[in-house]
């Protein structure tokens, strides 16, 4: 089966997802959704490791929620929480995304070319072979990586703004890492977060991810590979360990 086009104009998300599921069930590998305008939940709970969905337009919230396998490419902005509780697959956004991007994401990749809203990467986690990656080309707003429990979150600050210049960065972080190009002003770090320069080993680990991001969006990779980065992680492995006493 070749690429299947769906004209999504005026189609409700439930019908749209039904059509997508039917195509995938019949062996379709490439689906192109045209005229997407605010439909939520596209690819919600969808399986299929070799399925690619291209979205032309602006999808609504919870894009690729619970998704396990497919790749979704958005030519436009995305609303809040793309990749919410996502398990596997990829979401590539040629634009910006709203709040809570990659909320509780457990696996797969999300690349956002431009900016993201508040609480980006909140409570991302990792488990065994699953380590979610969120890369943001532009900047992020407050509470970036809050409650983060695992995974890799990179913010590149490519739009001439600092990667993040709002409060609560890594607030309550207890696993995973937040990497920013340059550094975050100390006053913006959240409770329980600490910032350090990257070691050369850590740098070697993230550069392939950044290179891939640059390739996907055809951005000049050289300045990114040459830049300095900081790493924000949990100041203590157990941020809540000293909070309680037995009755």
């Amino acid at each position, binding site marked *: 089966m070749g690429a299947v086009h769906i004209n999504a104009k005026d189609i409700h*998300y*439930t019908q749209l*997802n*039904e059509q997508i*599921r039917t195509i995938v069930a019949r062996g379709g590998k490439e689906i192109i959704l045209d005229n997407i305008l605010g439909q*939520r*939940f596209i690819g*919600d*709970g969808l*399986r299929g490791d070799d399925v690619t969905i291209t979205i032309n337009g602006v999808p609504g*919230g*919870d894009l690729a*929620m*619970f*998704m*396990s396998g497919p790749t979704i490419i958005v030519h436009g902005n995305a609303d*809040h*929480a793309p990749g*919410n*509780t996502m*398990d596997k697959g990829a979401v590539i956004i040629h634009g910006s995304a709203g709040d*809570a991007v990659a*909320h*509780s994401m*457990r696996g797969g990749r999300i690349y956002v070319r431009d900016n993201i809203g508040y*609480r980006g990467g*909140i*409570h991302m*986690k*990792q*488990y*065994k072979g*699953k380590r979610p990656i969120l890369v943001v080309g532009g900047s992020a707003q407050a509470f970036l990586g*809050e*409650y983060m*429990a*695992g995974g890799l979150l990179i913010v590149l600050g490519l739009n001439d703004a600092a990667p993040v210049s709002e409060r609560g960065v890594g607030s*309550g972080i*207890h*696993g995973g890492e937040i990497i920013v190009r340059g550094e975050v002003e100390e006053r913006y770090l959240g409770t329980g977060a600490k910032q350090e320069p990257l070691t050369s080993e850590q740098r070697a680990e993230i550069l392939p991810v950044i290179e891939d991001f640059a390739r996907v969006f055809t951005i000049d990779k050289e300045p990114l590979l040459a830049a300095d980065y900081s790493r924000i992680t949990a100041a203590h*492995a*157990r*941020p*809540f*360990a*000293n*909070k*309680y*006493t*037995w*009755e």
Partner: protein
Amino acid sequence: MSIGSTPLKFRVTIDPERCMNCGRCVENCSYGVFRKEGDSIRINSRNCAACHRCIAFCPRDAIEIEEQPGDYRSHPVWTREVREAIFNQARTGRIILSGMGNAKPYPIIFDQLVLDACQVTNPSIDPLREPMELRTYLGKKPASLSLRPLPDGEVELRTKLTPNLQIETPIMIGHMSYGAISLNAQTALAKAVSRIGTFMGTGEGGLHESLYPYQDHMIVQVASGRFGVDINYLERGAAIEIKIGQGAKPGIGGHLPGDKVCTDISCTRMIPEGSDAISPAPHHDIYSIEDLKQLVRSLKEATEWKKPVFVKIAAVHNSAAIAAGIARSGADAVVVDGFRGGSGATPRVFRDHVGIPVEAAVASVDAKLRDQGIRNEVSIIASGGIRESADVAKIICLGADAVYIGTSALVAMGCRVCGTCYKGTCAWGIATQKPELVQRLDPETNAVQVENLIHGWTLELAELMGAAGINSIESLRGNRDRLRGYMLDEGLLEVLDVKTVGA
């Protein structure tokens, strides 16, 4: 140590006349009260949690546990609990963690409500002779039905019905996660609900693969930490429950300490071994009723609209208005968890002081939904402090469709309500992950006990209904006329919409 030690909570004694030195107390106590020294058994009463495991297994009834053998100077304001909490916090500067449900002696509304029975003017019904309909359907009911006559004389139902859960008795088992309780305990509960034809909740701990055979009787939970949640988990559950709040700790999240995250729990919750499992206070994709609607719909969309989605809230001051919002979110049931609801570990200050009783919350939720003409949009599940069949009957009269039990089911497996769950050394194999303690709980034996309990309550419920001349649970639901308040104040009678005794 300027505070010094506090008086013993319990004194354990062994009657030497009766003791035969068998050492079962030493083997059974997981708190380190007993030890064998030569031919005698020595006792350290300070470690005792009053879980009664030793008493239960002493073949000679030789052990006695006395509560508060030496007490402080009595004082009505400065109680023992208050003084000891101050000592504790003066030493540590921390938040006090406690187990089980609310331990304050607030009056229990259930115990001030009485049920009705038929005399002379309408006959009571004998459940032995007449069928009693206890089957309940949880989920949305259509506001109206559209029917079309067919040429062959049959009638076609044109209204699209939404999925409901069918339960054979209005008693389900609430969400106690693998982590809070042991896998053997969960397995016993799963076997029991499968046999009875009712359901249990997984809690926010994922669904262990050994429970897959019982998945048609499991309600899978999606809480703020999203632990163990993936599309497979959602598809396995018979229904999905979004946990917004818990009666034992309204408004706050939960922290399963990393030292309790063993290999198996790590697999089920899908987090690395030894890492803290932190459930944030809010769901960070729900900051409003509109956002809740989005989560409800995302779950339905992910499971192709085949499963009911419940929303659980702690009973708080504005439960009624909140429930009205939930009813409009597309949810199929609202679970109202009262302030007596249990917990494996909760800050004492929340357990004892935050939230309201389930009786008042359910009555006001039911009234609000009826006022707004949306009672059919959601079922109401009551939980938190349901101790006996009479409580089930009374809360159904106040408007609930069904109940969740938690502590009662644990008591059916041996729990003595010692409230020390948070220590992780439950001698009964319930609230522990230590293999040597977990293996004490035989899933099959305990499944039978839990099944017996629910069966016994169901029989009693049928008798209570029959006595009131009611043969269908539908006619009991919201039937406040079959309740009377005994020594309840006017304000509360109004909230419950119940008349006083004698009226």
